[in-house]
């Protein structure tokens, strides 16, 4: 099983690497959100306060694009059907894809961070290692429902509307926690609240990564 997950992950990353314009597209989408919010904010003194939240808003929207693309590749020549009929465990497919999506989002997040710092006028006053943890687990929180619902929406009509609507309510707790944690870390976190928020994200991840993996097989079989 672990081996299969690793193989699926390798395949996902290899495909992304081959056509890097896709990942670039995801990145630019996130960047666009950051910039738009900055432009739309009348007083620049407000920007540092909303930096954390805006980052996660951008990542969440970018994740929907990433999911769309991840599944478009599968449906081009029916590879998804091929995977179904291959002696590979559907659960392995889920985790392989979800991990790959997490890594892609995390990469986008890491590249967005310096831009966030520049455009929103913030500094990382708190623990940078903690920030990395928040980014990692937060992206995992976005990837888990996205990988599941991406499978559904890629096979249904109106997927561009459906996917965000399905994902958004589900990830609210994670986005809330991640935004707060990020904001606290950027501000310096005098009351050490960020680790607690990270704990919330980790719990969210634990629940959803388990449940979604269990259910993925049903959806794949259709």
């Amino acid at each position, binding site marked *: 099983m672990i081996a299969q997950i690793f193989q699926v992950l390798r395949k996902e990353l290899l495909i992304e690497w081959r056509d890097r314009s896709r990942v670039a597209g995801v990145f630019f989408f996130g960047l666009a959100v950051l910039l738009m919010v900055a432009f739309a904010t009348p007083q620049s003194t407000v920007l540092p306060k909303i930096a954390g939240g805006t980052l996660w808003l951008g990542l969440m929207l970018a994740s929907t694009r990433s999911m769309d693309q991840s599944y478009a590749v599968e449906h081009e020549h029916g590879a998804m059907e091929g995977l179904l009929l291959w002696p590979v465990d559907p659960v392995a497919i889920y985790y392989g894809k979800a991990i790959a999506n997490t890594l892609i989002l995390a990469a986008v997040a890491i590249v967005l961070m310096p831009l966030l710092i520049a455009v929103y006028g913030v500094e990382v006053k708190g623990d940078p290692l903690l920030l990395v943890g928040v980014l990692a687990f937060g992206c995992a929180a976005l990837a888990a429902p996205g990988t599941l619902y991406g499978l559904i929406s890629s096979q*249904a009509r109106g997927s561009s*509307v459906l996917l965000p609507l*399905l994902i958004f309510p*589900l990830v609210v707790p994670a986005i*809330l926690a991640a935004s707060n944690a990020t904001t606290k870390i950027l501000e310096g976190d005098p009351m050490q609240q960020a680790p607690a928020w990270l704990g*919330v994200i980790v719990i969210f991840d634990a*629940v959803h990564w388990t449940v979604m993996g269990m259910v993925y097989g049903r959806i794949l079989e259709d």
Partner: protein
Amino acid sequence: MQTGRQWGGVVGYDALPRRWVIEGSTITAIAGLIGFVYLIAMVVPAVRRALPFRWETPLGVYGLLLLLSGNYLGLFVAPGERMMGEVGRILHVHVPAAWVAMLSFFVAGIAAFAFLMVGKRGLDSLVEAAAEVGVMEATLLCLLGAIFAKPTWGVWWDWDPRLTSTAVMLLSFVGVLLLRGVVRDPDRRATWSAVATLLSTVNLPITYMSVKWWRSLHQDMSETTGGSTIDDSLRWVMYYNTWAFVFLTVWFLATRWRLAEVRAEREVPDALPEVA
């Protein structure tokens, strides 16, 4: 001791006479018991079949009567609320609305889980019914809450744990309904929406807890507690209305379930032709 028959300006008159409370509570208990017994009786298929009409109709009528009388009680008989005055009356229906909305979503979640285990079409229809009824009631809940909140705290909305969880649930289930609307194949639609429903239900406790945590760390906004300020002696009015809402909800669920079944019937395949 003043009676409860006061209009406006009831600050200071915060409790009903004891006799009222006992009588009121007894009436509420009996009213609920009648409906509850009926509901239990309806679980038996033989009883349902024996009725010349749809089993849920008397329950719906009863619920409506309770609702009308309950509203009368809440608006005219019970005194105004201790601190909020007349506006507090809306809590008599706002709190029950919250309970039945969550009840409907909960029913949807259970039905979805059962469907994934067992696969009977009737369960899928129940998921559809419960999701729609839940969305309707949650919307009503938000409206009632907004009407209450504006004069009381000056805002239409707030992001406390309860409201946020309600909004999240509402959005999740709107998503489920949208998904159902988009997928044509009945089997796929059933499986996918059951999964989405289940995930939405599982998500509720996490959402609630994380927002609660968020609020407890943010001391800046005042706590919106809503509902706990009803005096104990007036609770029976709220419970009375709760019965009304519960029985009406059962009626909504049953009726909507029937509609879903009728639609599903149209998708039932033709009979398998015989060997030529």
